[in-house]
């Protein structure tokens, strides 16, 4: 009863926006054992470290970014008691309020789903070669998250 899952769809770096309902379907499709789904959605804020932000652009290292997101999914599946994981990051210009990043974790129980979800987004920020430029009234700034 193996369900056909396109693993490539579960780890993506893409320019287009995404629908959370649609991405959720990919995770639910994996198993009827899933009872708890934890999600994290990062969106573009109009404010950052005390200054206004009018919009932003994400740049990624094509190839390496996908590789790191794939690593994150695989380690999450290995290290946590979860059933499926989806990791998705956008690049290119993004307006205020728009989606940037999405993590979806399906597990039998919710505690595992939450733990894995938090780990994934923390790890993503640490190891994924993606950079953000913010457009502010003071000019355009490449953001250093860990200066």
């Amino acid at each position, binding site marked *: 009863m193996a369900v056909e899952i396109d693993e490539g769809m579960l780890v993506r770096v893409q320019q287009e926006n995404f629908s959370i309902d649609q991405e959720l379907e990919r995770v639910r499709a994996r198993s009827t054992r899933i009872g708890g789904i934890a999600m994290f959605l990062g969106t573009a804020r109009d404010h950052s470290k005390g200054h206004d932000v009018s919009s932003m652009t994400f740049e990624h*290292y094509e190839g390496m970014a996908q590789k790191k997101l794939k690593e994150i999914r695989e380690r999450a599946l290995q290290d946590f008691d979860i059933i499926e994981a989806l990791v998705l990051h956008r690049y290119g210009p993004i307006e205020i309020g728009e989606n940037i990043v999405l993590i979806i974790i399906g597990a039998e129980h919710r505690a595992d789903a939450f733990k894995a979800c938090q780990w994934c987004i923390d790890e993503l920020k640490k190891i994924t070669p993606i950079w953000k*430029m913010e457009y502010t009234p003071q000019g355009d700034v*490449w953001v250093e*998250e*860990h200066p």
Partner: protein
Amino acid sequence: MKVKLFGMLKTMVPGGKDLEVVLSEGGRVRDLVHSIQIEHPQVGELLDKKKVLVSVNQEIAHWETMLVESDEIALLPPFAGGAR
């Protein structure tokens, strides 16, 4: 060999394009960094402070890593993906 630049690094080199660095045979990341430091001191300083990492074939590399001509090299400023 070509060295890919990302994010703020592009604003630090004339033209904002990838770098072209000549590396002698048997060269290591350390030698590559040294060449860059001479031609692009601003980038060199960030490398020195370990604010910018070097990747070889899409993995973070140590300064002792040996390089060959076909390696894919990139300089990676601090990552800022995700959301705060």
